[in-house]
C-alpha cells in the first residue's frame, strides 16, 4: 500500500508538495472536520435531515481534490462534502441540501460539481460521460468520481469502469474504502483482496494507497489526473481509510462493529500525522491551531446561518423546476396547490 507520510509524521520518500501547500491543506482538513462535526450536531438538534459524516476521511477527500484543476468535473456522494467544497461547492449550499432544500443542489455556474449522489453507484457512469464529453469537445478537463467500497458491488460500477476503459475516457475513479457499507464490512462486500485489483480486469491501472495520508493521496491522484489529461485513459484509486463515525446520524454502529477497531483507526487520524509533520518543521503552533479552528467555526456558522435563512420554497415552487417551462397539466396542478 502506497504511503508517503507515516502516522508518526515521518516521510517515506520526498514530499510531492511544498511545506506551505501542506500547511494550507492541513487548514482545509481542519475546516472540513469542523464542518462535519457541526453537521452531526445540527442534525441532532433537528436542524438538518439525516447527515452522513466523513470524519476520518478528510485526507482522502482534501488531498485528491487538491490535485484537480478548477474546471475539472466532479461527481461525488452524500459523504463527500469536503471534496465538493474543495472544488468550489459553497458550504452554505451543501448545508442547504442537508436541511432538505432543493436549492442546495444548484451550485454557481462556474462550479463543475454535480449535486451529491444519494443513490449508491449511479453517478460513477455520469462521471464517465462528463469526461468523455470533455474529450469529444476538445476540452482539457477531466472528471473525477468518488464512491465507497459498497458501490463497487453495484452493476453501475462495472459499466462505468468498462466504458471508461474501452473509450479511454479521461476519468479518475476514486474509491474511499472506509471499511464499511452501512453494516457490511469490506471483506463481505467483495472477495477481491483489494479493490484496486479490480482495475486489472477492465484494462486500466489500479492503485491502493493509504487514504489517511494526505501526501500519498495527493500524489497518486495527481498522476492519475495527468494520465487522464494526457489521453492515457482512466485510473482506479483505492484510498484505504475508515469511517470513524456512524453511517449516518440514523445509524448505530454499536450494532455491528467493535469500538476497539474504531479506536485503532483513531490512532491513524489523517489530520494528526500532518500536524506532527508541520510541528516538526516548526510551522505549526497551538495558537495557529486555535486560530484556524476559530476561523473554520465562524465560516461554517455563517454558512449555516445563510442556509437556514433561505426562505422556504412555497407550494408553487415545487413545480417550477420540473421542466424548462410548465406544461399545462402541471400549471393546473400548480394552481390547485397554491389556492389551498
Amino acid at each position: 500500500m502506497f504511503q508517503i507520510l507515516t502516522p508518526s509524521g515521518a516521510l517515506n520518500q520526498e514530499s510531492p508538495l511544498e511545506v506551505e501547500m501542506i500547511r494550507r491543506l492541513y487548514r482545509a482538513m481542519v475546516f472540513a472536520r469542523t464542518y462535519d462535526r457541526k453537521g452531526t450536531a445540527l442534525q441532532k438538534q433537528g436542524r438538518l435531515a439525516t447527515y452522513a459524516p466523513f470524519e476520518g476521511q478528510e485526507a482522502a477527500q482534501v488531498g485528491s481534490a487538491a490535485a484537480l484543476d478548477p474546471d475539472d468535473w466532479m461527481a461525488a456522494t452524500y459523504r463527500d462534502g469536503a471534496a465538493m467544497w474543495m472544488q468550489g461547492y459553497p458550504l452554505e449550499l451543501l448545508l442547504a441540501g442537508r436541511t432538505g432544500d432543493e436549492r442546495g443542489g444548484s451550485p454557481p455556474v462556474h462550479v463543475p460539481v454535480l449535486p451529491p449522489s444519494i443513490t449508491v453507484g449511479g453517478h460513477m457512469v455520469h462521471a464517465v460521460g462528463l469526461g468523455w464529453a470533455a474529450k469529444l469537445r476538445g476540452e482539457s478537463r477531466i472528471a473525477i468520481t468518488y464512491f465507497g467500497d459498497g458501490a463497487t458491488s453495484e452493476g453501475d460500477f462495472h459499466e462505468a469502469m468498462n466504458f471508461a476503459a474501452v473509450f479511454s475516457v479521461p476519468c479518475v475513479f476514486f474509491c474511499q474504502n472506509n471499511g464499511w457499507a452501512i453494516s457490511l464490512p469490506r471483506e463481505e462486500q467483495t472477495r477481491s483482496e483489494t479493490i484496486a485489483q479490480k482495475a486489472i480486469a477492465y484494462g486500466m491501472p489500479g492503485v491502493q494507497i493509504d487514504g489517511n495520508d494526505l501526501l500519498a493521496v495527493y500524489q497518486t491522484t495527481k498522476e492519475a489526473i495527468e494520465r487522464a489529461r494526457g489521453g492515457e485513459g482512466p485510473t482506479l484509486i483505492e484510498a484505504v481509510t475508515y469511517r470513524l463515525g456512524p453511517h449516518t446520524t440514523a445509524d448505530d454502529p454499536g450494532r455491528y462493529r467493535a469500538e476497539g477497531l474504531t479506536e485503532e483507526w483513531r490512532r491513524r487520524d489523517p489530520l494528526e500525522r500532518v500536524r506532527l509533520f508541520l510541528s516538526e518543521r516548526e510551522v505549526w503552533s497551538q495558537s495557529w491551531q486555535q486560530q484556524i479552528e476559530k476561523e473554520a467555526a465562524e465560516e461554517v456558522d455563517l454558512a449555516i446561518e445563510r442556509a437556514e435563512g433561505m426562505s422556504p420554497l412555497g407550494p408553487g415552487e415545487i413545480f417550477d423546476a420540473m421542466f424548462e417551462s410548465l406544461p399545462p397539466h402541471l400549471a393546473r396542478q400548480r394552481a390547485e396547490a397554491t389556492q389551498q
Partner: protein
Amino acid sequence: MTVRNIAQAINDALDLALAKDSDVVVMGEDVGRTGGVFRVTDGLRDRYGADRVIDSPVAESGIVGVGFGMAVGGLKPVLELQFMGFSYPAYDQVVNHVARIRNRSRHRFSAPLVIRIPYGGGIGAAEHHSESMEAIYTHVPGLKVVVPATPYDAKGMLLAAIEDPDPVIFLEPIRLYRAVKEEVPEGWLTQPLGEARVEREGEDVTLITWGAMTKETREAAVLLEENGISAEVIDLRSLVPLDIETLTESVQRTGRAVIVHEAPRTGGFGAEVAALLQENCLFDLAAPIRRVTGWDTVFPLKRSEHHYLPGAARIAAAATQVMEV
C-alpha cells in the same frame, strides 16, 4: 395476543416463516447484523444464522436476480430492497424475469418470492427515500402488489405472500412502521391477498385509499362527519389483485367516490380504480369521481414535503365538493 406495531408484526411473520420452513431465506442490504435500516429484521440473524438471514452486497439487481434463481431453485426468498427509490436497479429483473418466468415456461418454472419494499414520504428523508411508485409495479403483468396499513394486515398478508405460489411485491409504508399499534394474534395467520378492508362504514361518499394515506383519509372522514357528511373509508390493501366487488358495492350505495393516494397523479393507481368504477357503476354515480393525490413533481425534500403530501383537509375539501354536485 401481543400489541405490535407494523415493523414488529412483519418481524413476527418473518420469524414464524423462517421457523416453519427451512426453504425460507431473508436477503437484503443490512438485514442481518444490524436488523435492517428500519430494524424490521432485528434478531433474525441471531436466531436463524447468516446463511438464512443474508447480508447482501450493495447490489439491488443482484438481490432480485439471485433471489429469482433461488426461488426457481426451490427456496422461498423474502427479499428486502432498502427503499423504493433504490428498487429501480432491480426493475429489469422484476419485469423481465420475476414476473414472466411462469408464462415463459408455461408453468414449468415459477418464482415464488416476496420483495419487501419500504415506501412513501413524510419523514423528512433524503432524496429517493420518499417514493410512492406502486404504479410501476401494478402495471407489470405477472406480479401481485400489496400494501398493508395495519399490524394485523402486515403480518397476515406477509405470511400469505410467502405462501403464495407467485411473486408478490410487498410495500411497507415507512411513515406507519411505528405509528400504528394493535393487538395481533400469536402464531401463523394469513390474510388472503385480494380483499379490500372497509375501514369505516358510511353512507354519503366512499373514500378509497391504501398504505400510509389511510391515516389522513381516516382523519378526513372525521372532519367530514363534523360537517354532517358520512364517509365510508376503504383500504384497498391489495392493489393487484384488486377487490373490485367491495368497491363497486360501496360506490353503488354512496353514489360518490374520492380516491386518495400519495403517488403522483398522472398514471397513478387511482386512475385504474376510477376507470374500473366507471365501468362498473357509472349510472350509480351522482358526481364525477375525484382524485386527491401527490402532484406530478419529484417528491420534495424535508422543507417542502408538506406542500406535496395530501392532508386530511385536502381530502375533506374534495369530498365536500363531490357532495355539492
